[in-house]
């Protein structure tokens, strides 16, 4: 497939499987990501939304080369037009790509916050003081150990590490839970400023109502595949502007909308349906959906993996 030189990260047909052993010690393959696609350009914030367990965090690990040894990967990941190899990943970790991890347990429990956010260096200290202040962290935060922080404070320290890096690509995995609305808005405003400097940002989040406001585009994941990517403005408009029945269902289930969930649950990776992964729960499914995986189609400035998306 042709590489777009202007993107920072471009992912095509990515599949990830885990080799597992069952109770009789027989090897089985668990396919956790199937034919996933995603791209992000300089200056752009792409929000990734979707079901819990749909492979959002796994994607971050795949890009950074942090998958466990029993994972096998197929498909293409390109960083600035170059195939992302393990050597390149090693160079980019902590340099070209910064990760805001999902779990606050990623902070080193034996190091004070200062040492984990640039150390005693003068320029770094000034920068840290500025960033902490804007994130609403108290002055003495740098002297605390992680166990002395509340959940929301730890989350803000993690976010600050991305603000303090000079990475061109920032992957923020659930940066806002535990923060108040005002703190979340502040953190997202700062991500937007980083984007204006020309950096690319992937924002993995469940707070989709915030994502609609702050992102340029939204990618919706389901059962390890991308079902739709669309301009964030389409999500603000609501179901009529959306293309995939799962995206519409996500929007409808927001408490500020109808709060009505569709029934059923996401398929288990060991037991994926043969055709469209969403078909078993889809109100619009036909015999074709149960048999064949729908291709990705371009519709109204977005992409959708559905035979009937319009």
């Amino acid at each position: 497939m042709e590489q777009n030189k202007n993107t920072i990260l471009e992912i095509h047909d990515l599949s990830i499987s885990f080799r597992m052993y069952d109770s009789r010690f027989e090897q089985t393959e668990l396919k956790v990501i199937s034919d996933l696609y995603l791209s992000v350009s300089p200056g752009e914030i792409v929000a990734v939304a979707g079901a819990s367990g749909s492979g959002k965090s796994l994607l971050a690990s795949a890009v950074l080369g942090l998958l466990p040894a029993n994972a096998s990967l197929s498909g293409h990941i390109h960083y600035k037009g170059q195939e992302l190899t393990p050597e390149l990943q090693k160079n980019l970790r902590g340099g070209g790509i910064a990760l805001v991890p999902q779990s606050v347990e990623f902070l080193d429990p034996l190091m004070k916050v200062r040492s984990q956010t640039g150390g005693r260096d003068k320029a770094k200290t000034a920068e840290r003081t500025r960033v902490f202040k804007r994130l609403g962290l108290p002055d003495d935060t740098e002297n605390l150990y992680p166990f002395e922080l509340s959940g929301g404070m730890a989350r803000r320290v993690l976010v600050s590490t991305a603000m303090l890096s000079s990475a061109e690509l920032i992957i923020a995995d659930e940066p806002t839970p535990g923060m108040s609305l005002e703190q979340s808005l502040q953190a997202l405003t700062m991500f937007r400023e980083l984007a204006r400097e020309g950096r690319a940002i992937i924002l993995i989040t469940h707070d989709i109502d915030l994502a609609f406001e702050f992102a340029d585009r939204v990618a919706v994941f389901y059962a390890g595949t991308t079902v739709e990517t669309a301009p964030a403005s389409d999500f603000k408009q609501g179901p009529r502007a959306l293309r995939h029945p799962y995206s519409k269902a996500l929007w409808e289930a927001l408490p500020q909308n109808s709060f009505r969930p569709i029934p059923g649950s996401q398929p288990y990776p060991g037991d994926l349906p043969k055709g469209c992964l969403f078909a078993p729960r889809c109100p619009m499914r036909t015999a074709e959906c149960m048999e064949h995986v729908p291709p990705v189609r371009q519709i109204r400035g977005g992409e959708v993996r559905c035979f009937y998306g319009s």
Partner: protein
Amino acid sequence: MALEAKNVSFRYGSNKTWVLENKSLSLERGECLVILAPSGYGKTTLAMLLAGYLKPERGEILLDGRPLPMSGVCPVQLIFQHPEKALNPRWRMRRVLEESGAIQEDMMDEFGIERAWLDRFPRELSGGEMQRFCIARALMSGAEFIICDEISTMLDTISQAQIWELVLREAAKRDIGILAITHNRFLAGRIADRIIDLSADRG
């Protein structure tokens, strides 16, 4: 009467600042009370106190006018934000449920738990699916009150709506009182009979 916190104060260590100071609230059976507050206001501490995980330094927690029982299953059950941390990773889900009583077939449908999930380990389920087990476990134990501490924060909107539909329906059926902690005002508006805003009475 019902579940009551009376002039409760708590701090983590006798030389630390108070996390909660002289707080009182009460909750009736069949009622859903939502506590709204940003992080660091002592919401989770309050939840731990009400469910008997922590003891208040001053004041008392009363159930129908008496202290929480010290033995047996606590009639006030806490459901946590991270179900993966509240489940034994080496137990299959069947064993998790059996811990709070024999598995009844009709309950599986009520809680939206598929039969195949019973033979899986927690890591083989999604967050929403694990949370269903945590709710089933709490309700099957004969709880009279449940404390829901940000139980849907880590879930997608569809799972969140499913979980709350389940909790509200099953609690109403059993006349259980719910204390829900969240920072999502829209969610609070959907589920609450009554809302207490903790941020209103402090800084």
